């Protein structure tokens, strides 16, 4: 039975071999065609890689030439070469052709298919050349499954902080924490976001989480500094004292820490100790304006009006638009009987306070979606008046983007 089966198999195998040999020329033709096609494709890919490499090398020196090379590549490859598209975008960016760069990137069907490292690079370059929108698109293209997603999230957070897009930040920070729950840095980022959004209680609690996970001394000290600052702001004197004690054990106190110590002593009602301490801080760092303002405030409360006056005047020389210090100096001058000068500082305080109130109203309106062009321009003017030029510029740019496109 086995022999007959073997003989049967041999027979059918022989039949098949005969058929193959009979059709061989056709198979050979197909195979040759396949080999040719693969070779062409391979050589094309090789060409694309080679041209991309060549273009990449030209990015810094001759970006326009790089653009030309990459145009040829993408015209051949279509949207099948996402890396080439990213490189093309980078080249356009390097050539200062921002609108085209943005347009180029938006032509990609699936930017997530591009190399994520290259997308990170593009984002960095876009930020450096003042194109946050392209940077955002690039970073958002890095998919949640990617190992580069945490880096992308951190940069997106930073980007949104720079552009003042506060509402977008929190979900990003929370996603980062979900991806890396045991990473102290994820908690640190969340804490910083919370602090920037004035969620001070939450930020303090999150910095405590950082401290549970952070083992590197420098970073622990940094987290403790932030925590101390927040606890002082929140008036949590007992907890702040604990943080300060721990910080003192692991790192030398910086000037800001020492000022926080002074503020903590003030919270504790230890005004004499606070006074002694701020004297030391100012002696060490006479040009630190926060230290001078703090000493001025304490001096005023002690009736040491000359010291207070000198400190506040020093601060105003550096920060002439500091409305609070104008008010404080006016108070000192009134107690010194110098009503004329006091009146001037009160008037300046009033002027700056009115501008601040305008800013608050305009910002509230903008946050409610009433970001009209005139409102944003007014806001920019108000920021100009209080010396915040960068914010003013940002608002003017935002206003310019609101200009309707001509039909």
């Amino acid at each position, binding site marked *: 039975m086995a022999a007959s089966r073997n003989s049967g198999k041999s027979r059918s195998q022989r039949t098949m071999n005969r058929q193959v040999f009979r059709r061989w020329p056709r198979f050979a033709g197909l195979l040759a065609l396949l080999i040719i096609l693969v070779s062409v494709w391979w050589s094309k890919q090789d060409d694309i890689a080679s041209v991309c490499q060549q273009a990449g090398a030209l990015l810094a020196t001759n970006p326009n030439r790089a653009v030309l090379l990459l145009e040829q590549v993408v015209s051949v490859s279509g949207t099948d070469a996402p890396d080439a598209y990213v490189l093309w975008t980078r080249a356009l960016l390097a050539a200062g052709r921002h609108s085209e760069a943005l347009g180029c990137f938006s032509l990609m069907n699936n930017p997530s298919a591009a190399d994520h490292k290259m997308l990170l690079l593009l984002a960095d370059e876009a930020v450096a050349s003042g194109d946050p929108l392209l940077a955002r698109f690039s970073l958002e293209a890095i998919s949640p499954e990617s190992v580069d997603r945490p880096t992308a999230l951190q940069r997106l957070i930073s980007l949104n902080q720079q552009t003042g897009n506060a*509402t977008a930040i*929190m979900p990003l920070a929370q996603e980062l924490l979900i991806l890396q729950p045991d990473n102290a840095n994820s908690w640190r980022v969340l804490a910083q976001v919370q602090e920037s*959004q*004035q*969620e*001070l*209680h*939450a930020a303090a609690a999150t910095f405590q989480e950082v401290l549970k996970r952070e083992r590197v001394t420098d970073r622990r000290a940094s987290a403790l500094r932030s925590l101390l600052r927040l606890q002082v*702001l*929140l*008036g*949590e*004197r007992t907890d702040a004292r604990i943080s300060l004690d721990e910080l003192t054990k692991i790192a030398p106190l910086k000037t800001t820490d020492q000022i926080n110590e002074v503020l903590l002593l*003030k*919270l*504790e*009602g230890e*005004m004499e100790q606070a006074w002694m301490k701020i004297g030391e801080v100012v002696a060490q760092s006479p040009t630190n304006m926060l230290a001078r303002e703090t000493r001025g*405030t304490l001096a*005023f*409360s002690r009736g040491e009006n000359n010291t207070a006056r000198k400190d506040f005047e020093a601060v105003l020389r550096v920060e002439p638009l500091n*409305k*609070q*210090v*104008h*008010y*404080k100096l*006016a*108070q000192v001058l*009134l*107690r010194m009987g110098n009503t004329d000068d*006091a009146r001037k500082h*009160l008037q300046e*305080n*009033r002027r700056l*306070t009115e501008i601040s*109130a305008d800013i*608050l*109203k305009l910002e*509230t309106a903008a946050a*409610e979606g009433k970001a009209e062009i005139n409102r944003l321009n007014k806001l920019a003017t108000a920021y100009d008046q209080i010396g915040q030029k960068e914010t003013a510029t940002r608002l003017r740019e935002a206003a310019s983007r609101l200009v309707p496109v001509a039909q």
Partner: protein
Amino acid sequence: MPTECRFRQLTFVGATLIAMFLSSCGGSSQPTITDESGRKTPAATEARSPSATSSPELTRIRSDSDWFDDITESTGIVFTYRNGAEANQFTILETVGGGVGIFDFDCDRQQDVFCVGGGTIDPGSVTPSGLPCHLFHNIGDFQFKDVTVSGHIPSDTDYSHGCVAGDIDNDGFPDLFVTCYGRSCLMLNCGDGTFIDMTNSAGLADESWSTAAAFGDVDGDGSADLYVTSYTDWSPKSHTPCGNSIDQTIDVCPPQNYNPLPDRLYRNQGNGEFQEVSEEMGIRKDGMGLGVLAADINEDGQVDFFVANDAVANRLYLSSERYSFIETAEVAGVAYNDGGSPEGSMGIDAEDIDGDGLCELWVTNFEMEDNSLFQNQGNGLFQHATAAFGLAGQSRINVGFGTGLHDLDGDSWMDVYVFNGHVLYNNGLTPFRQPAFVFRNLDGRKFADVTGSAGTWFHVPHSARGGAVGDLDGNGMLDLVTSSINEPTAILRNQLPVKNWIRLQLVGRHSSRIPVGARVTVKAFGRSCVRLAKSGSGFLSQSDSRILFAIEPERAEVDVEVAWPSGKYETFRARATATDHVLIEDSGAD
């Protein structure tokens, strides 16, 4: 006085004439006694309280007990201030809450309780409607009877916030002004235990949003004038809720989203009518007023006003010789905190905290701000002294509302209570209900947080707003009545050991009958203790207006110096054994 009211009063007076004659509400008969120097001085009228005659009360020592015992359930006071939150409209109107009043409306020498009603909000039109205020008659021994329904007070008030008592017709019966969103209400006390609505005929039918109010005779004509703070121009028509800054859930909009409404000062014409004199008296139009205090702040014998504004500078109106005001908050150093920033100020009070005879100013503030204690330096200048008095930091996580400077433990130093509660429903960071605090004044140098021993009510967070302080059982210790949003009003009996005291009710003759602006000095515990006759202090509330002094246990008599708003200085010799006195202007020694 309207005919209806006059008829009611005559009927009532006929029945109670004798009782009234010697009391503060009607009479002014004064015996004279000889003081230590042999000089004949009129003695203060004595009106011993029930407990003052009860020696066990005077000697009771309860060293381990809490300061306050929540006895609400046994008092008969069943009331809840409603703010209309159930409509889910998240209006800024709901954030203000309401106050409570302690005053003796029927002049029976027992302090009654008035609860401001609040209101509801229509879920469709967002239109607010008022709920009735309630009046609880003190029938003694911490028992109260709700006399609202028997027609004692007008029942058709608008959405109400605050109350202040004053005697607008100098008849000895305290009248009430209830502030509202819409038409505030002047309730004239008819003297028979009932009130009638005199708002329209008095010319006070302003339809804007009024919050706090204070009475004080600003023009020296002997009639109580009226200061009313206004908040913002929010209206149902313009209402849109705001997104919470944290997670964009719907919540109440901040006051900065609206325009401030001007405060109003009304001059009492002496004929039952009031005339608005805000502009000519120098009242500014740019505040968002939530608290006002009338008292003599700069020791010139005239009524001044201190106004607590939300989000913008506070205002200090000092009277000038020409019967107008000079606003001096910035110059005086009370406009902003010690960082030079405006605060969200709500509650307000003034008393001598440090024992130097000058009155300090005190305001409660929004979260992330310390409550501000402005220490009086003299010469019209104040120093932010919150930190120096150990009060920094403790309140930063809370939103402070009701407050008051009172000697709660009977040691002659003014302590302070602070009621808290957030204005945002869905803050997510700090809760809507927040704990209250009591700080004990340690010999005028510092305050110590004694909340831990303040009593069970203080151990639970509340959405607290108004608070009134008064001696509800006449034992010489100050009790507390609280008003919280959508929570039962609480009666907190002071159960600290009773010490020696005297209590003074000032009755003006040349000054207005309730002489707001008077300053009273008593030498006790080796120093001069100064108290102010004031109106409008606290938050939207009226506290017991009698002036209480702690006295050394061994003292039998004390000299009481009164600087009346009329400019007259008088000295009264008063018996100093847990006694009430009525001091009538022109009946003391010059």
